[in-house]
């Protein structure tokens, strides 16, 4: 039975990958639509990273836009001032973000849920201030930061379709990494902490250590996504790293469904499409997130994935009851 379930999941993943490969064709090669698809890959990695933190280890962050900024600016600055190729500096920037995440988690891991959310908001604000008032204006402050688009050892990703396939490879690699982490001793420690911190500690889990690991992993994911954005667009503006960006990540993760592989993907796709559709109402973005979050929290706590699971369980139960009656 376990094997059947496993191969079923594998099949679903394969279908998803095939569909994803065909996306540019399905979109008729439209450059704009492919750009949207590129953003979906970036947001999928961001929301999945946040899911490691929130969905699995049960810690909230309302400031992950900070890591998105560290990834984007970090990769750009390393490339601009140290001459490291952007593709390499993306990984270095993500690693730096992971380190900063770990340092932040060191004191933050002691905080209770709502204090943690306040602390991460403050952290987001600090990074925003640094970006807008940088020493020697290296980030370009309010003028924004320009960089040439991504090329990987001479392979120029100079159109959205090419970048989309690069993004897709990144998504697959990051999701494999996420799966390996959450289905292991480390992942079990995360979930145990989420479910019952006291008991986790009593069972030998070094709670602080695993909270720090979860923070570092999620920072790495989100920062890498942030550096992908720079490689795609070639321009960063501080206003992309306002509080609402952090709320966007949280909304995507919760709307799709936390503590799952598919949830953050579904969240990233649906909310990115929604946002593009509602571009003309840009000033109402926070309102839209607010409404979506309320819907999720009040009406479907497990997000879309959770709702689908509930419906499936309901059908199975009804079928079982029917069988019972017939017998």
């Amino acid at each position, binding site marked *: 039975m376990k094997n059947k379930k496993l191969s079923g999941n594998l099949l679903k993943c394969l279908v998803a990958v095939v569909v994803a490969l065909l996306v540019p064709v399905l979109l008729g090669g439209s450059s704009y639509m492919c750009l949207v698809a590129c953003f979906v890959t970036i947001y999928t990695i961001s929301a999945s990273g946040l899911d490691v933190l929130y969905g699995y280890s049960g810690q909230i962050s309302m400031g992950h836009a900070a890591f998105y900024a560290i990834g984007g600016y970090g990769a750009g600055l390393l490339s601009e001032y140290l001459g490291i190729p952007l593709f390499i500096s993306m990984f270095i920037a993500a690693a730096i973000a992971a380190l900063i995440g770990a340092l932040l988690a060191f004191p933050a891991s002691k905080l209770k849920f709502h204090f943690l959310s306040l602390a991460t908001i403050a952290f987001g604000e600090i990074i925003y201030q640094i970006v807008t008032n940088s020493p020697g204006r290296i980030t370009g402050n309010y003028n924004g930061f320009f960089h040439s688009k991504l090329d990987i050892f001479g392979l120029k990703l100079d159109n959205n379709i090419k970048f989309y396939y690069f993004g897709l490879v990144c998504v697959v690699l990051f999701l494999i990494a996420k799966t390996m*982490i959450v289905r292991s001793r480390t992942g079990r420690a995360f979930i145990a902490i989420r479910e*019952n911190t006291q008991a986790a500690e009593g069972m030998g889990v070094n709670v602080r250590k695993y909270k720090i690991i979860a923070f570092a992993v999620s920072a790495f994911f989100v920062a890498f996504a942030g550096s992908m954005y720079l490689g795609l667009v070639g321009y960063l503006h501080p206003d992309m790293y306002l509080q609402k960006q952090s709320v966007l990540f949280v909304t995507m993760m919760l709307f799709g469904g936390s503590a799952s592989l598919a949830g953050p993907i579904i969240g990233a796709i649906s909310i990115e499409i929604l946002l593009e559709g509602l571009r003309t109402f840009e000033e109402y973005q926070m309102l839209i997130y607010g409404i979506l979050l309320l819907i999720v929290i009040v009406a479907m706590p497990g997000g879309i994935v959770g709702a689908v699971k509930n419906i499936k369980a309901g059908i199975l139960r009804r079928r079982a009851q029917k069988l019972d009656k017939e017998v």
Partner: protein
Amino acid sequence: MLKTDGVTIRFGGLVAVNKVSIHVRKGQITGLIGPNGAGKTTFFNCISGVYKPSEGHVVFDGKNIEGMRPHKVNAAGMARTYQVINLFRKMTVQENIMVGMHSRLKSNFWSDLLRLPNQRKEEKFVREETEKWMEFVGLQDMRDHEAGSLSYGKQRLLEIVRGLASEPKLILLDEPVAGMNSKEKEEFDALLRRILNLGVTILMIEHDMKLVMGVCDYVYCLEHGSLLAEGVPEVVQNNPDVIAAYLGGDE
């Protein structure tokens, strides 16, 4: 196995545990009884690292462990269960036991991420080992059920076996039969014997006097945070102070 010497803990002005010295001998079942609010659970928390005693020493297996963090105490060979059931409710029965094995395992973040050969081998061992523990308490048919969906009595059993999965030298049980049905209670003596046969020493808080008198080798009685009496069950049971404390004859 375990010796405490004058363990005291104060919360503000309240002395919840007052100069308690006990000795838990290897291979025995030691009971800890006392009326509600006597400080039994608080005493467990002092031993298992949840609280650092204000005074006194806790010597476990020859080492001073007072003030050690709970996860270190667990790794040192002491497991425990909780009075209020503290399972990982959304995890399955099997996963709960897997977490119980945490301190015995060696894989780390990198070997998990990269699925190194040692990690794969260890995970295979984990699955086999959890089978053994599920059978130990008869939960093998419930392996994929969420812990929170089990009956109260089964949750108690799962908590015990989750503790045992770390292969401890000593297990602390806080009111293990509370919430069990009469059949489960009846079978509990035998389970305790089987735990002893694994080479695990037991220290147990329990209100069920029949059980305590039936299985314990030695009993301590706490009242208002202080030791009131100690000895073999018959002696403690017939101690007039203990009888008075239980009848609620407050002083």
